[in-house]
């Protein structure tokens, strides 16, 4: 479904990805793990088009992605829930959700999708008319994920959905994502710091280090692999 080969990308000439090969099958859930600064976010941005690739190729359903503008990629079904939530703070929760269904296929299914996301994240149901900026961190993250789900994604990319959240709030997010995956068949990429939670909801995982793929394995294998902890903290646990 998504095929990346030999991808190099970076900011202001500083490389963040060095020759990354990466693929996601139809309906597959993939975790990207690795220490901060390893290039995980850059990889997602290169896929959604907000960071330009220096070389290499990305194709989605056998069509070249790199030649397409970011909004065309969303139309194709690639939906990115960015790090730091990026809620439209001055707009209501309902308007945020409505912007989520900006993709043309999703526009007609707005009401149906809204019912779905409110089922996944019941906490949002009572605050549709509140401004996004007035929500707590956890609620904002729910809204960010919900906004992505509104677009009927074919490939949903979640960047650090638990970042900066208290453990309880992070648990709520992961429970919601798990509920979503029960009903949806969308493919998914999760970038996540909390390795256990990410591996729990994914089939397979990549570990990035210094912009290169250091490890690739099934979730089960990785959960038992001490090298993962070493990659993060450099110490044996």
């Amino acid at each position, binding site marked *: 479904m998504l095929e990346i080969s030999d991808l190099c990308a970076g900011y202001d000439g500083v*490389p963040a990805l060095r020759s990354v090969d990466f693929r996601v099958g139809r309906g597959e859930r993939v975790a990207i793990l690795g220490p*901060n600064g390893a290039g995980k976010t850059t990889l997602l941005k290169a896929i959604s088009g907000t960071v330009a690739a220096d070389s290499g190729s990305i194709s989605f359903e056998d069509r070249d992605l790199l030649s397409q503008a970011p909004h065309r990629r969303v139309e194709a079904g690639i939906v990115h829930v960015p790090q*730091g939530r990026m809620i439209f703070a001055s707009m209501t929760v309902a308007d945020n959700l409505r912007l989520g269904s900006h993709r043309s296929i999703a526009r007609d299914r707005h009401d149906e999708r809204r019912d779905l996301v409110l089922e996944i994240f019941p906490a949002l149901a009572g605050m549709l008319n509140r401004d996004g900026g007035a929500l707590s961190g956890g609620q904002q993250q729910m809204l960010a994920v919900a906004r992505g789900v509104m677009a009927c994604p074919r490939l949903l990319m979640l960047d650090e959905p638990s970042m900066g959240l208290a453990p309880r709030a992070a648990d709520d997010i992961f429970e919601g994502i798990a509920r979503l995956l029960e009903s949806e068949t969308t493919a998914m990429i999760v970038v996540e710091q909390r390795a256990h939670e990410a591996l729990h909801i994914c089939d397979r995982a990549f570990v990035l280090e*210094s912009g290169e793929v250091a490890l690739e394995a099934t979730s089960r294998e990785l*959960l038992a692999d001490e090298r993962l*902890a*070493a990659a*993060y903290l*450099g110490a044996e*646990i």
Partner: protein
Amino acid sequence: MRRLVPFIVLVVVVAALNGWLDQRFYVRVLTLSVVWALAGVAWNLMAKAGQISLGHSAFVGIGAYGFTILLRDSDTSPWIGMAIGMGVAAAVALAVGLPTFRLRGFYFTLATISFPLILELLVSHYGDPELTVPFHPEGEWEFMEFSNSHTYVWVGLGMLVVALAISELIDVTSFGFALRAVRDNEVLARAVGIRTVAWKSAAFMISAALSAAMAVLWVKAVLRVTVAEEVFGITVVIVMLSVAFVGGVGQTWGPVVGAAFLIPLAMFLDDSIGETVPGAQELVYAAALVLVALLIPRGILPAIERGCRRIATRPDPSRELAGRSLLQRLAAPSPRPSPLLRLPLRRQRPRMPLPAGAKVLEVDGVAKSFGANEVLSDVAFSVDAGQRVGIIGPNGAGKTTLFNIMTAHLRADAGRILFKGAAVDRLRAPRRYELGMSRTFQVPQGFHLMSPLDNVVVAAIGASLPHPVAASMAMLERVGLAGKALGELSALTTAEIKSLELARAMVSEPDLLLLDEPLAGLNESERAGFFGTVDELVAPHTAIVVIEHSVRSLIQYVESVVALDDGRVIAEGPPEDVVSDPGVIEAYLGSKWMEHARDQ
């Protein structure tokens, strides 16, 4: 010597034209070309700092009204009137500029656009909308009352040469370095001790004074009456902008090229079709502005320079420099000169020594919120002389905010930062640098329009070192960049840029070095070498604080680690203790990881 050539060319060309032309109209074209070149040079001084002023007609108006009123009321010589006008213009510039110089972005341009409109209103309402300049045939030089119109061209040429010399002088002194640094990267400039507000104010005042001087010549040589609508009018600014942008914005010689090209074009067009097409002159300027904006935003001179450099650097193995074509030799970039002169504006302050037993850095109860979002709460730790401390934490833990507070990019809501025992919370970035605090940036920053050597020289100037160039060159040698000192910044690799950042941070021999994710963007082997380079550069007493994502590389280097999570210090101590702390592991890998690990 090289710098004298354009002056000689200018004087010879203008002198030849002045001797050769005798028709009134042509002399007028020549006079106005010189007048507007002068105006453009004045305007461009401000553009050296990257500031676009739309209000320079205010200073032209002040100069014009100032001398006319003095001449009318007290028979004061226009020369004295000019000097007084220049002083007033400089003072007014300071008053208008100061509130905006602290702000980033558009505010300066916005504030300047309305200013001349207001002065025009005041002058027209409370003064005279039009003043005739009294005729004083008795003193040709005393009253600038030349019977021969060629003499105005000579006077104008003299003033233009003086203005160009001032501009050139600024370029080669630390003044010019500071302005270029501000234009290139203001945040970085402040981080290396450049007092941006002071330099911008100085440039604006000189620029305003020269504009007022130009006004006297303009009125005496061409206008003959001082009309508020004309001297305060937007057209003055438009012509200044046009000649400067067409020639080269911020470039000393840009306005001369721009004026030589645009003024005759506009005047000949006006002369031929002005009767039927009243706005022809303005259309020339407008079209020039639009075309420059879309095609060559930096102007003709830089475009030519770039073209020449391409010719000059074209590989030509068969011939050495002597055999190169004349064009290639002329175009070869001269070895970039670093500041020839240092302005004795500021004595180097003796740096406060570290009191015995005091900590280099003490962070005490620092808290910071953005809106309802509390990013840091009650963060406290301290750093001894010569100690290396690492700060770690997962994304969103507050590391960057903490760093920004230490480097004066943000102000804490509560708590104190003590540097060598003294509170520095209220001090801005340049002052903290002067006291001995240096930093690097997460995304490496550079002055992209300068050579690597000049990048370091700016920092040396910021630290008021007695020999900035020598000190900088020595620093580049130590990091292994001496061979590339005069090249282009864009030619450096990531690792070299990181070394350059270190050289820039270390040239002031700081007591505290703050490194913001220094390993980002480096590959495995470069990472291994990086901290080695740091150790070679720092003096034994220099303390180092590193924020770093790559915990593995960090813990091999530092002596102590502070772990942050959710804006709080969750662990502090020797690296091996901190990374095996259950709270730290939980913060990095999630609570369930620990349970899982225990089950295994």
